[in-house]
């Protein structure tokens, strides 16, 4: 089955036997975009978070068939070294990651939050950023989220 969508601004088509294959596998194994991580495989940890039509989605639990005709953005498409997204910039400033494995998911979740709520309170952060970090970098992340909000409004 052929499924077409835009990913990081580029049109992309994949020919896949099972249209229920998680978008995560397609992104990582077929499109070779390894920034999006596999964590739990049951939509619990958020390491696989990416954007579909601007919404944060747990891609391990998102059948690729639902991406047909949509805009998918992964961590690779959010920003780059020369022009980082405010969330990436804040993450760098606060040296948020420890092992770093879960961080792309957190960054994508945070970018989705700031797109809808440019000045989140601590409560907003608690409600919306519910990914899991085994290194427990939550305190630095909270500071970085507020910094990213400020950067986004400069």
């Amino acid at each position: 089955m052929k499924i077409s969508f835009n990913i990081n601004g580029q049109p992309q088509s994949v020919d896949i036997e099972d249209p229920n294959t998680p978008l995560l596998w397609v992104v990582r194994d077929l499109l070779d975009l390894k920034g999006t991580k596999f964590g739990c495989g049951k939509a619990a940890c958020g390491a696989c978070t990416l954007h579909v039509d601007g919404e944060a989605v747990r891609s391990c639990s998102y059948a690729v068939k639902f991406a047909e005709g949509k805009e998918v953005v992964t961590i690779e498409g959010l920003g780059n070294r020369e022009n980082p997204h405010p969330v990436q910039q804040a993450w760098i400033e606060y040296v948020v990651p420890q092992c770093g494995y879960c961080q792309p998911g957190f960054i994508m979740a945070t970018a989705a939050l700031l797109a809808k709520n440019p000045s989140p309170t601590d409560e907003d952060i608690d409600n919306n950023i519910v990914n899991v970090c085994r290194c427990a970098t939550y305190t630095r992340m909270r500071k970085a989220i507020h910094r990213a909000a400020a950067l986004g409004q400069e």
Partner: protein
Amino acid sequence: MKKIRLLYIIPVVLFASMLLATDFDYENHSAKSTETTNMKAASTNNDNFDKMMSALTHPRCINCHPSDNKPKQGMEEHPHYFGVARGEDDHGFAATNCNTCHQEENNDFSGVPGAPHWGLAPASMNWEGLSKTEIATSMMDKSRNGGKSPNEILKHLTEDPLVLWAWEPGINAAGIPREKPPISKEDYIAAVKGWFAEGAVIPGE
């Protein structure tokens, strides 16, 4: 004498016609308003009501009709993981909402359940902790059911894919099939239609 017999026959014929009607249109049922039928005392036969409520009081239904704005999960009805809550539109918070994880159908890879318009019932339709009578009263009360007419409620109960998901709940993350309500979907739909056809009488406590 003939006149007296006629007085007996007319209501019997009317009642029998109502029971035999296959496409009973509740809204066109003359004279009996929703309000009056809802307030009726106990019916002599609550079979359809009891069958219907055996499904509507099952965790597959109640878990998304919470009384504390927190969806529940599992047969033990624990609060939804990750602090998920109702939010402003019954679909969670701005960036982390139902569709962050739940899509239009069950996902057998992750074990995450899904159905069209996955989300909580409106806060006015809190059923958690209510009796069967209280749930039915709430369900038929336009001021609490989103302004739905009896026919719209009938349609919601028997055709809405999110309601009927209860009979196709998929598997959990461990690959174990989720428990379904205690009666089959067909028996449930027949019971709901039967209850409405009988006038949607809500028995007393």
